[in-house]
């Protein structure tokens, strides 16, 4: 019987970029270096790391938007690379930037998504209203162009899009970044309900320690593309001898979550691989 929602083994991903024209140099950025972890079915797993640590790359690999250089992934038992079509039917994703057709209304954007997943109009609209209501979004805004909505409202519409088809697996890439405290609480409460009522497996990346501690049963620390530690919030604090998760991250990663070294110097991620 399937017990793992996400299984990642030895995942590596790097990006190369050519610089210069005549004497061009190729620089390679290692975004993920031998990352391995597991998330149980129905578990909420948090991934904490500074900007550029590899969180979004990992989410993109799991969303079938990036092909890894090496390593393998199983999502709900389906292998990546290989079974992308099966994975896409079962995964919802929310990214930090709410990417929509901004001239279209929330209704039009969400209906478009619903049709993409083969849903009928009437059930899709019912489901949308349920989710938006649970997220605390005023139904009257439903027909307004998204460009007229605040960032918080747009993000709630993005979450609604990810949940339209009730996916058993959710990939949330900093879903509450930029939200006001009330909107943040609304989203967090909704995610808790989703886990307890539907048993949804959730992978959440965040900078927000309190949010991660509240929502996630286990947490992984990622820095410079490596998963450097994982466990419950208490375990991570105990292992690092720190009182807060923030301090635990600094102690284990040697850098702050805002991307600075503990000493204050900015980290370089790129390594020159050759001319």
């Amino acid at each position: 019987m399937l017990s793992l929602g996400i299984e990642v083994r030895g995942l590596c991903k790097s990006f190369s970029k050519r610089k210069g024209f005549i004497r061009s140099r190729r620089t390679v950025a290692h975004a993920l270096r031998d990352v391995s972890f597991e998330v149980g079915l129905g578990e909420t797993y948090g991934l904490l790391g500074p900007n550029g640590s590899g969180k979004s790359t990992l989410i993109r690999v799991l969303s079938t938007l990036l092909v890894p250089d090496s390593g393998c992934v199983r999502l709900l038992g389906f292998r990546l690379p290989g079974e992308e079509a099966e994975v896409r039917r079962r995964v919802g994703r929310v990214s930090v930037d709410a990417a929509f057709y901004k001239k279209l209304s929330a209704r039009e954007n969400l209906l478009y998504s619903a049709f993409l997943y083969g849903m009928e109009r009437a059930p899709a609209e019912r489901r949308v209203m349920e989710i938006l209501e649970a997220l605390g979004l005023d139904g009257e805004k439903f027909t307004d162009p998204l460009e007229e909505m605040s960032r918080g409202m747009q993000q709630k519409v993005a979450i609604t899009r990810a949940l339209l088809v009730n996916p058993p697996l959710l990939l949330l890439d900093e879903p509450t970044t930029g939200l006001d405290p009330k909107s943040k609480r609304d989203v967090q409460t909704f995610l808790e309900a989703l886990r307890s009522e539907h048993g949804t497996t959730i992978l959440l990346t965040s900078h927000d320690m309190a949010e991660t501690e509240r929502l996630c049963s286990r947490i992984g620390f990622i820095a410079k593309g490596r998963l450097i530690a994982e466990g419950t919030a208490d375990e991570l604090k105990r292992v690092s001898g720190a009182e807060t998760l923030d301090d635990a991250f600094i102690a284990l990663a040697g850098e702050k979550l805002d991307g600075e070294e503990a000493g204050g110097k900015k980290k370089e991620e790129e390594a020159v691989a050759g001319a």
Partner: protein
Amino acid sequence: MEHVLRQTWAFFFRDYQLTRRYFSWVVVFTFYAVVNSATVVLIGVAAGDRRLTLMLMVGVMLWGLLSVVFQEIANSITYERWEGTLEYTFMAPVSRVIHLAGVSLFATAYAVVRAIVIVAGMLLFVDLDLSRANWGGIVVVLGVSSAAFIGLGLTAAVLPVFSPERGAEATNIFQGVLLLVSGVYYPVEVLPRWLQPLSVVSPATYALSACRKLVGIGDGPEMVAGAPLSACAYELTVLTLMGLVSIPLGLYVFALVERWAKRTGKLKRTG
């Protein structure tokens, strides 16, 4: 099947809603296209040459249709990159064939409506009797040539994956070359000899040749009855072959570039 139709409809629905939201721009661009077409056709009127007038009118109508089919498909990925929605489209459980079929359906419907408006607009400026044209045959030629242009559009649609701005620029250059070599407003024989071979590989060349026969442009200054469709057998065969080759080729190129983009991380939002 119903599921597939709904997914195809998703793209038609999205593009229709976007067109509706940008309707004032659609009106402006269509107005410009009507005026631009009229200025071209009036050259024939000024020369007092009905044959030239009709030849220009066919060119304007056909280019108005086929270039928009090409442009809408070719730019579909550019629009998605600008909006940042490309990743969401690519991670939806929709095959690329359905995706591009939906985009192509809307592009064709939009181009047909626009071409009808342009022809209606031109008839306000020019007094031409088109009652003897073989309209049924013209519809068949437009349908077959649209398929060939859809194939070209699919191939060009991958360019913005490499670079949103450069891709859009390259698409416009490609479209310009098609306009130059296809004999839209003049016979291809007037092109420099070194350029003429390009007209052989442009589907617009054959579509124009067929439509000019079907609309009733004879060798002399007098209007003649539109030719039967059988008179365009050669053009239709070439156009069908071009469609049969260019659509699968466009899908294949698209699939290759999509795989490359997923290896190199080029799907990420830019622009």
